[in-house]
Each structure stands twice: as structure tokens, then as C-alpha cells.
């Protein structure tokens, strides 16, 4: 029987559940926000606010001047009205935010916000062994567990503070993986970023806990441009988690972040993201435009960088976490679940650039399209001439739910070395009627059956996430898909 599963009978299900974006509330808090608009003066003011060293201002201005000359990229499989970069405010910070020595000094409303989001900043209620940095609009409000970490020699602090305390490290590494001119949004970020997280793991140290940053956009008409920089010295290991939410607003908001990772010899960085920015409503009104540049450099031999992402939010996602495999025997991994529902659009994937010998990379991408969503995998595997014995395996699967959505796959393979071995597979399918009936015959309701099949589809990615995140991701997927069947 080949009738579509989404038949008349199932339409009732649509009415059953309407997806609510639970994180859509606004915190009423007094903010110090710049007027919308962007010019060199705004950049000087941001830099002055942050009391930055001179080199940083120069860096920003250089980036801004390149940005002005760059065209906005249009190659992605996404469609959105032109962004007016002059209507965005480039700095917003909760007032009453001097140096924080203890939680008592944090505005209770902020604590409340994070509590509502399920992110405990109070140390006694902390998740098991996870240190948290919380970024609210443009600034970091609180980093927990700093003392425990500093005993191990680990630096985990807002990048704005790192600029004061460790300017030499920032100067050495900032822009070393993603140069200011790398792309349009990276250049913009370099010019205007206001905060983000900085992580430094010294030689031979295995970071004693998971590090985590939660990003929150609150103010209206404010762009969020955070910058994350993680350095793992020789033999170091760190697992870093990132979560994102924003209020429900009718206007689109811009988020343009840059993440740079550097793994030295024998070091390993595991970077996990659960992205749940506000996706807009079912008619495509509102939502975050998420234009993000993430790149890791496996600089030393035997280094490893692993990206895992669960992307369920944002109206537009444009994001390609990549690995440059420079060291011999280095390893790059990319595990991704991207879900688009209603009118969401995602164009995401990865680049694996093999330069060293015996380098290997793995790409597992699972795209789910529902409603009017469009989901595109775009990836590049490049084997340079000197990269002897490079290995890559890529698997890109798409699951379609409903006949109004789309799933697209655009992998690129460029091989300049005959000892390379690359394998790419892609499939597109829907949830089969046989699978649904089988599970129903075993007593499961329609939603439970769909959720079970979707989770099975994503399993190869979920098992890469740290346990707490995996559970969260699974629930998020369930919530995001509510109402998708019908």
C-alpha cells in the first residue's frame, strides 16, 4: 500500500499538539544598549566599553574595513529578505553588571531567567561536574567553577576578561583559524563581537569537568556576535558544550558567531552544540538568523577535533563546523542532526581539509524536514597533495515528513592524492508506512511511533553527545516535531 502516511486520518494529529517554544519569554531587565547602526565609531565604542588593548581595536577596525568591501554570500540554499545591518544594535549589556565576585551580585532577574531555561548558575544546584559560562545578549554574566578549574590550570572565562588577563594568548590565537577576511559574517563578527568564552587547557591536562556556555539573546533588534576560542595544548583534552535560546519575537534577529579551536600535538577537543534559537512561528514570522563560522585546527600530530551539533532552532541556519587536519594522524569528526519544521531553513554541513599524512575524517549528517522546512547538507572533503593515506567516510541521510518540505544534499569531494580513500553515501527517505504500522501493532501511538523512528534515525549522532545533552537533545527533537505528523 503506497498511500502517503500523512493521510486524512492523521490530520487530526496536527490539532492535537501545537508546538510551543518554551524558551520564548522576555526578561524585563534594564539594559545598556547602543543605538542601532554600524560605523567605525560604534566599533571604537565597543572596544572602549570593554577597555580593550590597542591591538584589539586595530584588529576590529581592520576586519570592519574588509567587511565593507565584501559581498554578502548568496550561494546557500536559503531564502530570506535582505538584512539591514544599520538597523541592528551592536552592543547590549544588562545594566548593573560590574565585576561579579559572587552570585549575590548577579541581578536576581538574570538568575531567574537562567533558572527558567533550566541552566543553574548557583553552584550548589550545578549539574554534575559541568562548569557554566552564561552569555546574556552581548556579555558574559557569570562563569561558574572557576576556582576548581584554575587549580587544574584550566582557564575558562569570558573572552572580554581574557583580553585583560591573558592578552598574549588572545593576540597569538585570535583569528589564527578563522582570519578576519574569511567570510562576510566572520569579518562582521571580528569587527563587533562583544563577548564569548575563552578556554585554555595547558599541556597534559585533561579538563576535570565538562565546560559549558549558554547563550541567550534578550534585547530587541540586537545582534549577538560572540566569539569563542579554545586552545588545547599538547596532550590536553576538553569537552565543551554550547546551548542557545532566545525570546519569541516577530522581528528577525541576527546571530553571527565565530568559534575557533586549536588542538596541539596529541590534544583532543570535543565541541557539542544544542542550538535552539527561536525558530519563528508556523508562518515563518520572526526567528533568529544564525550565520555561524566554526573551524578547528588540528595543528599537532595525533590531534583530534570532534564537532557534534543538534540544530533545531533558528529561522535560518548557515553553519559549517570544519576541521583543518594539518598534523599527521590527526582526526576530524562531524556529527549533525538538523531539523527544520514550519518555515525553517537550514544550510549546514562541514569541511574536512586533509593536509597531514594518515589523517582521517568522519561525517555523519542526519537531516529532518517537516512542514515547509528546507534542509540542506553542504560539505567539502578536500585531500591535498601531501596528505598521503587520507581517509574519509561520509553518510548524509535525509528524512522527509510531509510533501511540502525539501531535503538537499550538496557534497564536494576534491582529491589530489592517489592514496586517499573516500566514501560518501547519501539517502533520502520518509518514515515508511510499514514501520509505523509495525510499531502501532505493538501498541505504540502515532506520535510515540514517529518519535521512536526519528530518534533511531538520529542515534548515530546522539550517542556522540555527553549524556545530559543527549537526553536534552532527544526531548528537544520530540518537542520540535510535535504537530509535524499530520
Amino acid at each position: 500500500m503506497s498511500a502517503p502516511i500523512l493521510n486524512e486520518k492523521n490530520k487530526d494529529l496536527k490539532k492535537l499538539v501545537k508546538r510551543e517554544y518554551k524558551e520564548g519569554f522576555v526578561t524585563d531587565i534594564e539594559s545598556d544598549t547602543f543605538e542601532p547602526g554600524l560605523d567605525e565609531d560604534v566599533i571604537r565604542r565597543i572596544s572602549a566599553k570593554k577597555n580593550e588593548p590597542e591591538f584589539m581595536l586595530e584588529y576590529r577596525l581592520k576586519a570592519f574595513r574588509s567587511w565593507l568591501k565584501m559581498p554578502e554570500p548568496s550561494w546557500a540554499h536559503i531564502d530570506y529578505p535582505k538584512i539591514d545591518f544599520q538597523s541592528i544594535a551592536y552592543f547590549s549589556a544588562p545594566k548593573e553588571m560590574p565585576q561579579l565576585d559572587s552570585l549575590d551580585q548577579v541581578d536576581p532577574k538574570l538568575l531567574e531567567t537562567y533558572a527558567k531555561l533550566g541552566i543553574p548558575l548557583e553552584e550548589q544546584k550545578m549539574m554534575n561536574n559541568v562548569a557554566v559560562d552564561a552569555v546574556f545578549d552581548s556579555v558574559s554574566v557569570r562563569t561558574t567553577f572557576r576556582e576548581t578549574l584554575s587549580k587544574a590550570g584550566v582557564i575558562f572565562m569570558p573572552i572580554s576578561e581574557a583580553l585583560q588577563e591573558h592578552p598574549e594568548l588572545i593576540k597569538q590565537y585570535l583569528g589564527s583559524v578563522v582570519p578576519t577576511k574569511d567570510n562576510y559574517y566572520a569579518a562582521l563578527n571580528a569587527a563587533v563581537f562583544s563577548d564569548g568564552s575563552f578556554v585554555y587547557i595547558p599541556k597534559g591536562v585533561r579538563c576535570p569537568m565538562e565546560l559549558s556556555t549558554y547563550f541567550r539573546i534578550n534585547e530587541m533588534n540586537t545582534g549577538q556576535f560572540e566569539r569563542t576560542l579554545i586552545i588545547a595544548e599538547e596532550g590536553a583534552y576538553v569537552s565543551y558544550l554550547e546551548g542557545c535560546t532566545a525570546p519569541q519575537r516577530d522581528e528577525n534577529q541576527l546571530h553571527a558567531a565565530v568559534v575557533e579551536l586549536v588542538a596541539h600535538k596529541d590534544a583532543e577537543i570535543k565541541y557539542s552544540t544544542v542550538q535552539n534559537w527561536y525558530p519563528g512561528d508556523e508562518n515563518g514570522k520572526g526567528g533568529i538568523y544564525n550565520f555561524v563560522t566554526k573551524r578547528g585546527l588540528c595543528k599537532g600530530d595525533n590531534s583530534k577535533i570532534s564537532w557534534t551539533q543538534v540544530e533545531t532552532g533558528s529561522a535560518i541556519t548557515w553553519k559549517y563546523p570544519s576541521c583543518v587536519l594539518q598534523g599527521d594522524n590527526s582526526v576530524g569528526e562531524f556529527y549533525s542532526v538538523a531539523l527544520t519544521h514550519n518555515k525553517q531553513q537550514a544550510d549546514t554541513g562541514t569541511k574536512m581539509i586533509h593536509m597531514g599524512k594518515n589523517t582521517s575524517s568522519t561525517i555523519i549528517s542526519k537531516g529532518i524536514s517537516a512542514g515547509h522546512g528546507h534542509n540542506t547538507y553542504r560539505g567539502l572533503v578536500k585531500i591535498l597533495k601531501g596528505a598521503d593515506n587520507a581517509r574519509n567516510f561520509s553518510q548524509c541521510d535525509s528524512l522527509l515528513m510531509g510533501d511540502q518540505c525539501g531535503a538537499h544534499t550538496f557534497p564536494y569531494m576534491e582529491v589530489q592524492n592517489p592514496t586517499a580513500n573516500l566514501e560518501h553515501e547519501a539517502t533520502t527517505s520518509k518514515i515508511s508506512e510499514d514501520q509505523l504500522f509495525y510499531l502501532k501493532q505493538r501498541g505504540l501511538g502515532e506520535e510515540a511511533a514517529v518519535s521512536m523512528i526519528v530518534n533511531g534515525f538520529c542515534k548515530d549522532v546522539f550517542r556522540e553527545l555527553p549524556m545530559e545533552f543527549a537526553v536534552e537533545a532527544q526531548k528537544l527533537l520530540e518537542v520540535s516535531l510535535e504537530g509535524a505528523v499530520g
Partner: protein
Amino acid sequence: MITANENTSWITAHADVALSGANIAWLNQQRKSALTQFEAVGLPGVRDEDWRYTNLRALKSNDYALTSASSLNIELADTTNPRLVFVDGHLDQAASTGLSDSVTSLKDSLEIVEAHFSSTLPKKPHGFTALNTAYAHDGYVVHLKSGQVLEGVLEVVFVSQSADAVSHTRNLIIADANTQCTIVERHVGTHGTVYLNNVITEVVAGDNAHVDHYKIQQESNDAFHMGGVFINQAKGAHVKSHNIALSGLVTRNDIHSNLLGQGAHVEMNGLVIGQGRQHVDNHTEVNHAVPNCTSDEYYKTVLDDHSRSVFRGRIIVAKDAQLTNADQQNNNLLLSKDAEADCKPQLEIYADDVKCSHGATVGQLDPVSLFYLKSRGIDAKSANALLTFAFANEVIERINVDSVRQELTQIIAGELLSGLEELV
């Protein structure tokens, strides 16, 4: 866009030569709009996404002239099949044996092709395609009326023998309902001669028509081959396209099929044997426009020396094209440290009840198989040659016409097994 340092005088120099004497309104109209299209896009460059891996500097730095008809001055192998021979793009009547009511030259068939000319072309053609429409001066036309079967195999040989010649040929296979034909198109030249062969074949397959099209490309090692095979398929039409590229300096092929009627099926097979400085760029596109169609694509590449291959395979499934079944495989074998393979398989799916997949690999011969052969007493060189041949032969095995398959097996064996043919 045409840039200042490119030699482009040849492009417009012969505007008045093309299809001389054919003062036909519809054709002139098409030529005019094709020229307008060309002026807008110019010759492609690496900045165009569809040409990013194919550098045309060498092509653009040369000058070309349109030649007038001349007679064949090389010897062709004997054949028992009916055969048409084109020399530098002009039909050589004396050398041709296959002309009939159904098989004619473009010049003699303008009335027949009016309804179909350019009907299969992409909406936004690249510069070479536009030039072809503007300047096409000859080509073959196969027109089968409803129910007609073209017995045996029709061979068409395009010989390029003049240095620095350019030919724009346009072929049409118009297969009405319930017809059947097998056409083998060969492109040959003498090594050492530089020329530009810009050739398009349009296939219009009616309801339940069966068309087998072979394109065997053995151009000069210094030649440029810009080719297109554009197919429209009606209800239940079965078309097989076989695209074998053995030589030429820079080859580009656009093989497109539009599946426009339910139950249509297209099979696209491709083989590239790259040697020397050969560059082959194959762009395939299957457009599933209606429900219940199937497509099956199988492209293989063997690259030696400094050769380079580009494969772009695109599958588009339109919004209402439910129950589509589309598969695409692209396998590349690199034999030399200076060879390069770039591949870009693409799926664009706008319907949900579909089964689509693509797979791509780049790699070497399987070491276990090599060891197995060696353990049976076969020397390393022969084992390598044998497995390479076997890799390529998987495409050849998909050919149903015995004579064509045998001939190609011999050609491929000759290319890959040099001196070891007794192995197969």
C-alpha cells in the same frame, strides 16, 4: 563574461556562415535569442559554480575557424552497420551509407525538426550551448514515426581533421511513440591536432519509446570537446545514455534528462579513462518532474598520469514527483600521484514519498583482491591491470547491444591492459 585577454574573435567571425542559405524565420529567431543569451553569459570561467574545476584558459587562448565541407582523409575501420560520416562538422555524403527516410542530415530536415529544435535544452544554457544554437551548421537527424523500429545499430562518426577548426553540430533523435533505436555516436580526431568540437544531441523520446544512445569520445589529445546530450522523456519512455570518454585535452559533457511522463526511466552510464593531461568534466542532471519515474546512474573514472576528472551529478525531484526512485553511483580510481578527482553528487528533493540515494568513492584497487590474484601466481603488473580493467568493465557490462559491448571491451582492454589483452 568575455575578458580582454581572451581570444574571442572566432566566436563572431563566422556568424553569417552558419547554416548558410537557410533563411528560415523560426531558426533565425532562435539564433538571435541564443546570441543574446551568449552575450549575457559569455564563455564559462572558473568563477561559475558549474565550471569551478574546469579551466578553459588553453581553449580560450587559441583561435578557431569554421571550415567548409571537405572529404574524409583518414581511414575508418570497416563496419557492417549503416554509418554516417561527418568531417569537421559537415556530412560527407560519399563516405556515408546510412541515409534513409528516417536518417537525414540537419540541413535537409529543418522542417522536421522545427517543433523540437532546442526543446530539450536547459533554460539557462551555458555559453557553449548558446553558441551551438546560434551557429549549428549541420548534424544528424533520426526521425522515427510512431511504432517504427530502426533495425540494428546506426553509427555516426564525427571526424575532426583540420587544425584549429571549430564545429558546432546539432543532432536530433526524434523518437515518436512506441519506437526503438540504437545509435552509436563516435568523435574521433588525429592526435596532435588542435580543434574545438562543440556538439549537442537532443533526444525527444515519445510515449514508450526506447532509445539507446552511445557517445564514444576518442578526440585528439590536443582537442577540446564541449558536448551536450539533452533528453526529454514522455510517458513510459526508456532512454539509456552511455558516455565513454577516452581522450581529448579538455572534455565537458552535459548529460541531462527531463522525465516528463509517468513511468519514464533513464539510465546514465559513464566511463572516463584519463591519461596524460586529459581533463574530463561530466555534468549529469536528472529532473524528475512527474511521479512514478526511475533513474539509475553509474559513472566510473580511472585516472592515470596528470589526468583530472570532474563529476557533478544532480538529481532533482519536483514537488509532486512522488514515488520517484533515483540512484546514482560515482566511483573514482586514482592510479597516479598527479591525478585528481573532484566530485559533486547532488540531491534536491521536494517530494516526500521517494527513494533517492547517491554514493561516491575515491580510492585505489582493493589490496585483498590484488593479493588474491598474486597468490594465484599473477604478477603485480598484470594483477593491477586486470583489476583496473574489471573496475572499468562494470560500466561496459551494462551495455545490452552485444556488438557495441564487445567493441568497447576491446577498446578499454587496449587502453588499460596494453599488451596484456590475453588476460581477458
